[in-house]
């Protein structure tokens, strides 16, 4: 019996592993990735060092090392042992190479034409242009676009290239030539600077709160309260109707909305005789798009609140309804003074739950408008998905996407805390003084 307390832990271990693997780890990784510049360009493993065009740009702009950048970007041609050997292996004319060694050994040329002029000046010069080119190609010296596994190798190569570097320059180079991901706050700076971010944020808040207030809690309350006052049969029927969208596969469900809104769809067909030109009603204007987005999400979203509220109303003792009627309460007063106060906890639950799920779910928007027209319905979660996982104007920006998700998490937690405060959560859960 002594190890019975360990038994519990032991039995929970598999669950614990799953929790860590599938819940905790992704959150932690997202948090970490948010502070990196990870993208398809950097890869998600470590990187190498390379003097590239894109590395020279920050060298000039951030460090003001224009001269160094110019030097590094140059190609020079030097007649050295290494080049001569390579030329021999590439099939260069042996006599020409011997003469080249004796005439120009260790001489450098600024470009390829100058090397070729020197080769042409040889007595044993190759007879064809191709023969000349085979040889000249072997003497090119450049650090540009060469990958080095370590920074030291890059430095050696630069030294070979004949460039002397100051300590500051070394530091700058280490920074700009690294091709892997690095930790940075740049994502958050970018987020604040981009005007799109503000737009997306406003879209998100509008989308979440409009859907929430109108449908997920508002309409759900209307449905559950009105069915409460109906006879059981019709009430059950009415509730099941509102459950249908919930059990329809999302893709099909949105497809039906699209069909409704298409330029050859239902709306266009019935509105045409009334003088409205057929069009895609959903993507016609931002207002229309929003109306559809909110309806699509709201009609699905209301069903859950309806179920929770309905069962909560059922749980109110019938005697409270009887008592309030006898006390003189009209139906309106009954709703206001008896039902709603009793629903405070379910309403809080649904509000928090639906806020979080509206904040993070974007599948209906993705399927319906894909954020259009012109980004008008792009919400935070969708934008995160597009930046991080959808090829959207080029590379996938994992780091930026993660940073966006991180902000979403922070927004979600803050909003929940505000709700708890608003609904006076402490009082709701305070233990009763007398059982």
């Amino acid at each position, binding site marked *: 019996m002594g190890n019975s307390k360990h038994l519990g832990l032991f039995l929970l271990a598999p669950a614990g592993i799953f929790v860590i693997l599938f819940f905790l780890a992704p959150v932690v990784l997202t948090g970490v990735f948010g502070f990196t510049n990870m993208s398809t360009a950097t890869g998600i493993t470590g990187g190498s060092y390379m003097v590239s065009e894109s590395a020279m740009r920050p060298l000039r702009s951030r460090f003001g090392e224009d001269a160094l950048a110019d030097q590094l970007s140059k190609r020079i041609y030097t007649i050295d042992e290494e080049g001569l050997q390579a030329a021999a292996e590439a099939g260069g004319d042996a006599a020409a190479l011997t003469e080249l060694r004796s005439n120009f050994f260790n001489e450098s040329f600024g470009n390829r034409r100058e090397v070729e002029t020197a080769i042409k000046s040889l007595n044993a010069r190759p007879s064809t242009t191709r023969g000349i080119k085979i040889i000249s190609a072997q003497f090119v010296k450049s650090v540009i676009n060469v990958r080095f596994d370590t920074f030291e190798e890059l430095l050696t190569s630069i030294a070979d290239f004949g460039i002397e570097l100051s300590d500051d320059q070394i530091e700058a180079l280490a920074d700009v030539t690294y091709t892997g991901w690095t930790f940075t706050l740049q994502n958050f700076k970018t987020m604040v600077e981009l005007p799109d971010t503000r737009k997306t944020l406003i879209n998100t808040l509008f989308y979440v709160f409009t859907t929430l207030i109108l449908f997920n809690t508002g309409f759900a309350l209307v449905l559950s309260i009105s069915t409460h006052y109906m006879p059981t049969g019709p009430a059950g029927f009415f509730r099941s109707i509102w459950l249908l969208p919930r059990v329809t596969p999302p893709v099909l469900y949105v497809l039906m909305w699209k069909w409704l809104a298409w330029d050859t769809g239902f709306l266009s067909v019935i509105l045409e005789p009334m003088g409205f030109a057929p069009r895609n009603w959903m993507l016609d204007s931002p207002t229309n798009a929003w109306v559809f987005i909110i309806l699509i999400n709201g009609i699905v979203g209301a069903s859950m609140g309806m179920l929770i509220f309905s069962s909560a109303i059922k749980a109110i*003792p019938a*005697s*409270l309804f*009887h*008592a*309030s*009627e*006898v*006390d*003189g*309460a*009209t139906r309106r*007063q009954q709703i206001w*003074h*008896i039902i709603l*106060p*009793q629903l*405070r906890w379910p309403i809080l639950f649904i509000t928090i739950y639906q806020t979080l799920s509206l904040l993070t779910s974007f599948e209906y928007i993705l399927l319906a408008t894909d954020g259009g027209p012109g980004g008008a319905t792009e919400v935070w979660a969708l934008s995160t998905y597009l930046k991080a996982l959808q090829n959207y104007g080029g590379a996938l920006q994992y780091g930026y996407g993660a940073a966006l998700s991180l902000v979403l998490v922070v927004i979600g937690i803050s909003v929940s805390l505000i709700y708890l405060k608003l609904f006076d959560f402490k009082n709701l859960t305070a233990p*009763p*003084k*007398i059982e």
Partner: protein
Amino acid sequence: MRILLDKFTKKFGNLTVIDEMDLEIHDGEMIALLGGSGCGKSTTLFAICGIHKVNGGRILFGDKDVTNVTSQERNVGVVFQSFALYPHMSVEQNIGFPLKLRKESQSEIKRKVDEIAEMVHIENLLQRRPGELSGGQQQRVALARALIRRPDVLLLDEPLANLDATLRLEMRSEIRRIQRETGITAVLVTHDQTEAMSMCDRIAIMDAGKIVQITEPKDMYDNPVSDFVAGFLGSPPIAFLSGQIKDGNFIEPSTKTKIPLSGNITKNHNGRNVRIGVRPEFFQPGSGITIGGKVTFIESQGRETLFNVTLSNGTILRSIQGKRSESKIGDQVEWGIDAQKILVFDEDGARL
């Protein structure tokens, strides 16, 4: 306010729970609806306050037909069996709720709540929630809420069922006092005969949706119209002996005991099979017509002792005795029945 139920009928689906009930409750009277579980007491109460729609007949308050008036407009105060206090409101808000619904001013509500709270002795509990009250305190709050708008009628559905014995005794007189003070017409639903007898001016005994007898408690005890009523009132209950009327006497066949009956009963019923009811206080040692049996059960009730005496045919007679008795279980005894006090019922249970 007088209440009149005129051929009141209530059905739930195909089930007729109350069939053409007539009941008149006088102004200022407190009446008890007494009956076993499921006999339709609550249903009657719910019809009077308008929670249930009636399926037939009329309900009159005074001379006004309220059959189709909603419960909101009947001005009836109800204390529900479960009290039905609003859990999310303080005691003060609970009591003031009916006034708040009528949009009376805050100060007016406060004044009336304080006044009624004093009457039911809960002045110091006003800020608590119902969940923080004992059963007896909740009961007073429910009573205060029912009384605050000076209803024409007060309905109480087994208000004391949840209370312990002492509290029940206390609340009995408390409710009666308040009912007298306010002069309100009241209906008390209960299945506790003591409660009905001690609190009410009249008792209406119900059985399977019908009122079997309605009269004052004392009269009902002494003159029940049927064996059902006789069996319902009295604790410990009345005992019945089966036998025959022969030549002015009741003959108990197993013991051949002869009990003389009054002349007007025997006149028309000679030879008829009947049952007589003997209350425990009228079956005592040393007086009356003796009948022999064996003591099979003794229960001390403190001041009094209850004996069961089983006759040779298995019938049980009960005796309640004040003074100490030497009898033990298994003793053969010969105790007397008071012939003046026996009640005679025919085969169908109707009183002769």
